[in-house]
């Protein structure tokens, strides 16, 4: 049993490093200060188009498991929102000071 726990520990430490192909190089900083122009933004928006998402189609990403559809994200998001909203409401009530008398 102890060996199994030790193996799990070692594996858990190794996983993040085994799963990525991040290239290592010298760290540094880049860039300077700037702000974004709204006129430039509007120009960009007009150039693009969109089709409505086909929710019943399979997901085109390699991350998807067999049978997963594009619409699954919306379904999961609704469930998650319902759960989180209630828990966060309680959390905020605990943190906020009591109303003045």
């Amino acid at each position, binding site marked *: 049993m102890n060996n199994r726990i030790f193996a799990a520990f070692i594996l858990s430490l190794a996983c993040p490093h085994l799963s990525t192909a991040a*290239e290592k*190089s010298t760290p540094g900083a880049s860039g300077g200060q700037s702000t974004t122009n709204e006129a430039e933004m509007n120009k960009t928006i007009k150039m693009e188009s969109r089709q409505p998402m086909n929710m019943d189609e399979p997901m085109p990403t390699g991350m998807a498991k067999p049978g997963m559809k594009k619409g699954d994200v919306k379904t999961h998001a609704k469930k998650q929102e319902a759960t989180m909203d209630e828990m966060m409401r309680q959390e905020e009530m605990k943190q906020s000071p009591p109303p003045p008398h």
Partner: protein
Amino acid sequence: MKKRPRLYTALTTVAPKEIQLLERRLFLKRSLSLGALALLTGCDVTDVDAVHRTLWAMSKWNDRAQGWLFNPHKLAPVYPDSAITKPFPFNAFYDEDEVPMVDSGKYKLTLGGLIRDKKPWTLAQLYALPQVSQITRHVCVEGWSAIGKWSGVPFRYFLERVGADLSAKYVGFKCLDDYYTSIDMATALHPQTQLTFKYADQILPAKYGFPMKLRIPTKLGFKNPKHIAEIYVTNVYPGGYWEDIGYNWFSGL
């Protein structure tokens, strides 16, 4: 006399101490493989629920271990302009022609949870924030990576500006394409974590997440939400779409 193989000849020129280091690394690698094998031999793979529970517990432990090992001051590698990947790949759970279009005039960023000033932000207000640029590598869990130039406001600056509780555990994101994810506060405060408004010095194209995405060069690509509609701070574990179906939550690089 038999000629020595070239590899052997080359090794004779290596100092014994360096060979010892190599052997130690090999030993560690083999120990890890052996550990994984030992763990798998203990699983009854016909019991799917038990396997899922074991893997889920391991992933949770993995999150904690990565959280402990995360160095909030260690920067991700940055690259010169010449290293930028052209074209930068598009990747999402939908096709490129289904990217959500956002009316910039109506758009407002919503804030929630443990944030003092929850007033919504218009794009003009967000664009007025001081911006910096970074050329960093986006690493996808699918096995590919690409380098791009991203500009925007350091996320730490934004969180401080809105009075977020920086001692909270999580920052969550809800997106206009229904995607949702969350990150740890340490990563949110990392100097390279950026609320991004531009790609390659141009307004963020829709396919890369207009009107804004969160760029996190210390995490895998799916932890970089696009088309952000809401940001919230909480101590309640928020999970994420991919994370809830089994992908590792921390997913650090």
